[in-house]
């Protein structure tokens, strides 16, 4: 019998599948290796690596059943004219989901900026929730409790980054969960998994071995709208001053 390695593995599949099932199932407290107090999650977005392919936007929509027309993450294309830096031309057709038709550069600086919830440590959105239906978890992820949310939409008003929306099906506020169901099982987020260039990196600021620490020390890293003091934990490498 001439079995390839893959065919061999197919015979072992029930075991592999069972392992995978075990991985998918259950809550973080049932995942024996996950301790909420030992993590402080964030994300690194590297502008110099983003190619605007829209993979992250599609992956997020597929992973989280994001209703069409709304975005937990999206990609913007900036086109900056040197004589009018503070007022760039920005577009994001369908949130960049299907990529960006090229526009002749016309002497402008162009680049892509992926956007998502900044999982702020001092988040204005959780501050304003009247009932405690949105909150920051002990491991630093801002979540919405869709069983408790009133749908008052105050959090949507309070988010300076436009990262929240009102889900027309559940009638509750919705946002990026930093794929909480994945990161608590040792997986990375769907957008990071799908990003072909490594422009997105899930980072754990509490993990001393996370390469983010060296990266932050050696690069020019910024967060969006730092003057609003939101404690944003989504770090941008190579962020242009015109981005808002």
């Amino acid at each position: 019998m001439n079995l390839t390695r893959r065919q061999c593995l197919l015979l072992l599949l029930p075991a592999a599948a069972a392992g995978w099932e075990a991985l998918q199932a259950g809550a973080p407290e049932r995942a024996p290796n996950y301790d909420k107090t030992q993590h402080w999650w964030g994300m690194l977005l590297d502008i110099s690596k983003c190619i605007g392919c829209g993979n992250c936007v599609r992956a997020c929509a597929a992973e989280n059943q994001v209703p069409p027309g709304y975005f937990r993450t999206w990609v913007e294309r900036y086109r900056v004219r040197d004589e009018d830096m503070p007022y760039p031309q920005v577009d994001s057709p369908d949130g960049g989901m299907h990529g960006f038709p090229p526009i002749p550069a016309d002497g402008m600086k162009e680049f892509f900026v992926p956007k998502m919830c900044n999982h702020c440590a001092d988040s204005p959105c959780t501050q304003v929730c009247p009932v405690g239906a949105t909150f920051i978890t002990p491991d630093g992820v801002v979540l919405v409790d869709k069983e408790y949310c009133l749908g008052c939409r105050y959090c949507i008003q309070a988010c300076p980054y436009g990262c929240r929306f009102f889900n027309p099906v559940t009638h509750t506020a919705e946002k990026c969960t930093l794929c909480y169901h994945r990161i608590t099982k040792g997986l990375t987020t769907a957008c990071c998994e799908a990003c072909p260039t490594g422009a997105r990196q899930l980072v754990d600021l509490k993990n001393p071995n996370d390469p983010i620490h060296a990266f932050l020390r050696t690069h020019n890293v910024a967060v969006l709208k730092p003057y609003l003091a939101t404690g944003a934990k989504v770090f941008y490498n190579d962020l242009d001053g015109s981005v808002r």
Partner: protein
Amino acid sequence: MQVQGYMYPNEYELAWSILIVVYPYITGLVAGAFILASLERVFHVEAVKPTYRLALLTALAFLLVAPLPLQLHLGHPERSFEMYLTPHRTSAMAMFGFVYLWYLMAVLVLEIWLDYRRDIVLLSQRTRGWRRAIYRALTLGSSNISAGALAVDERAGYIVTVVGIPSALLLHGYVGFIFGSVKANPWWSSPLMPVVFIFSAMVSGIAAVLLIYMFTTWVRKRALDMRCLDTIARYLLYTFLIDFSLEMLDLVHRIYEANESFRSLDFMVHTRLYLSQIVIQIYIGTLLPLALLGLVQVIKLGATARKRIYACAGSLALVGIFAMRWNVVIGGQLFSKSFLGYTTYKLAFATREGLLPAILLMLLPLPILWGLTKLLPPWPEREAEPAGENRAATLSL
């Protein structure tokens, strides 16, 4: 004309609809009407006495409706009680339930009950059937209306009113804070917002009571107490002047500072908000009524002319304050937080958050007020002789 420039993709749709315009408008009327009522009681402005009870009932009628637009707006109205169960300390909105309940039960209902107790007891003895049952229940089983008991009521009512004034300011200043504390939104974020809301509330409340007083007097075919009307109009002018100065201060400050959001907001005011902000709110809703009310102070006019001017100025003030609420709530959502683009508010008609429910909610306090005046007539019994009224009116001329 829909989306212009760049908006974050989740911003195309406005999160807060016309119902959130109606809500601060109605609470404003409540706070304003109550403050007018307390003028007589606390500041001894005797001239406005004829409107005291009417102002209280107006405040109650509008306060009962105030939470309905919010309720209708919520994605899950059935969960609104969570505001009472687990109010979030850091949220500017969480205290709404408690401020509302406090104002309704500890201030308005209590003050009305104390003021009407004598009438309630007398009515419970005079009426028959189900009406009697209602009044009996309202007496809470005590029919003591001796001079001593009424003196106690008077004293307690005074205390409630004194507590009520800061409560009324709190109720509406708080609504202003809900907007003024949103640091993400430069159109809202301003420490002046609560103060502007309080004074605009007083303007709208005083104007509403003025109009309701004129209307009910006309319906009941009584003569207007012109001294009362003149006094109310004067207070309307004063509060309106303060309100307008504050709003202009805010505007001048924004124009002079011209910070990063200015180019965006300035463009918005000159395009999408031009009609509602510049034309309706400032020209028609503020400057015109101010000129009319000022005119009465400068030129001696006959009673009929004054009545017409007051009716006109009062109505314009109500329109102007509504436009102000609109410009705050809707205007604050028309521009992108990227300051690079603008969206449009599409006002539907017969949907849950459309124009129709907004109009119905605005009209709902009027039948409630009618019911309240039937239950607790705000007019003095001796008013049965209109001759005395007329004499008072002539005297004041």
